[in-house]
């Protein structure tokens, strides 16, 4: 069994829903065309292809492009030792995907993390709360339109945040430096 073989079987089952596998540095990725069908694809991958281990779920924000959102599922089979990566995209303003917690229990916290930091909702998730930020925080900080410094916010009974000072700070990267060494965060002498 190879990852290419897994991708072929997935395509044989779902046809046009699954793109041709892309191989890069021995890693095989397939794109799932319709995000809403993702749970079915995952269920098939687990039950028929032996991908019994969900390694990770991550998300990508291609800000300014369409579709803006991509969710990445890293699958692994403890029986056949093959990795397979599923990607699916969503162009909605507030994206919503089907949960895969019904397929892998491990998806629970991964989906909570994606929800917390990127703001994607997972339909059918048993407990879709924030996992890293606190309840009541109004933003999703890994979105590209969210500033690194943060935004002011107030949570009743919780912390009040302020934007962190990025200008002139001691450990600030310099955008547009001529090379990586110049852009490196380092102690700087701020001119008076």
């Amino acid at each position: 069994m190879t990852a290419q073989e897994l991708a072929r079987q997935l395509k044989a089952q779902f046809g046009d829903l699954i793109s041709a596998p892309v191989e890069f540095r021995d890693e095989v990725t397939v794109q799932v065309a319709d995000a809403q069908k993702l749970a079915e694809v995952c269920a098939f991958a687990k039950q028929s292809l032996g991908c019994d281990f969900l390694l990770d779920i991550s998300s990508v924000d291609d800000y300014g492009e369409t579709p803006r959102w991509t969710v990445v599922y890293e699958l692994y089979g403890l029986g056949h030792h093959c990795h397979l990566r599923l990607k699916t995209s969503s162009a909605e303003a507030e994206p919503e995907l089907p949960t895969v917690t019904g397929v892998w229990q491990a998806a629970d916290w991964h989906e909570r993390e994606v929800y917390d930091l990127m703001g994607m909702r997972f339909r059918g998730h048993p407990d879709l709360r924030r996992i890293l930020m606190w309840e009541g925080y109004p933003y999703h900080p890994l979105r590209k339109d969210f500033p690194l410094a943060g935004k002011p916010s107030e949570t009743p009974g919780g912390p009040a945040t302020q934007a962190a000072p990025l200008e002139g700070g001691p450990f600030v990267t310099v955008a547009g430096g001529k090379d990586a060494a110049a852009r490196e965060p380092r102690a700087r002498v701020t001119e008076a």
Partner: protein
Amino acid sequence: MQTRTEFGYDAKNEGDVVVTRLDAAINWCRKNSLWPMPMGLACCAIELMATGASRFDIARFGMEVMRFSPRQPDVMIVAGTVTYKMAPVVKRLYEQMTEPKWVIAMGACASTGGMYRSYAVLQGVDNIIPVDIYVAGCPPRPEALLDALLKLQQKIARERALATLKRP
């Protein structure tokens, strides 16, 4: 033994009578058994543990009694990055500590947010609780923390204990 502090007592010379200011006596009691509360939030806590262990031996200064209940310690050592999520907990623990109480901000993160200029990190624990001593370093060496504790002792020795005594 004669000390250079305001409160000294030599049983041979002075017999059973001690003449001093009450402030000095109270401060002498307070400063020589500072019980720390380790608020270990990040890597600075490792140095804090080293400070408490045998090589640096915080027990030399009567501060080895690390207390994890906020009702018992005197000085909170905030060692590490205070995230916004942790900030209400730090504040509550400080408020639960009994008077008199002091705070040491250990390391760059606790003092100013350090290198974490980001949406998740409180830019200095002095935004939520009053800090007595700031310790520079990332993380500070155990000697730096011990120096901070000795400086805190000097600060306590100068306090007006009676005037600021909280009445029940």
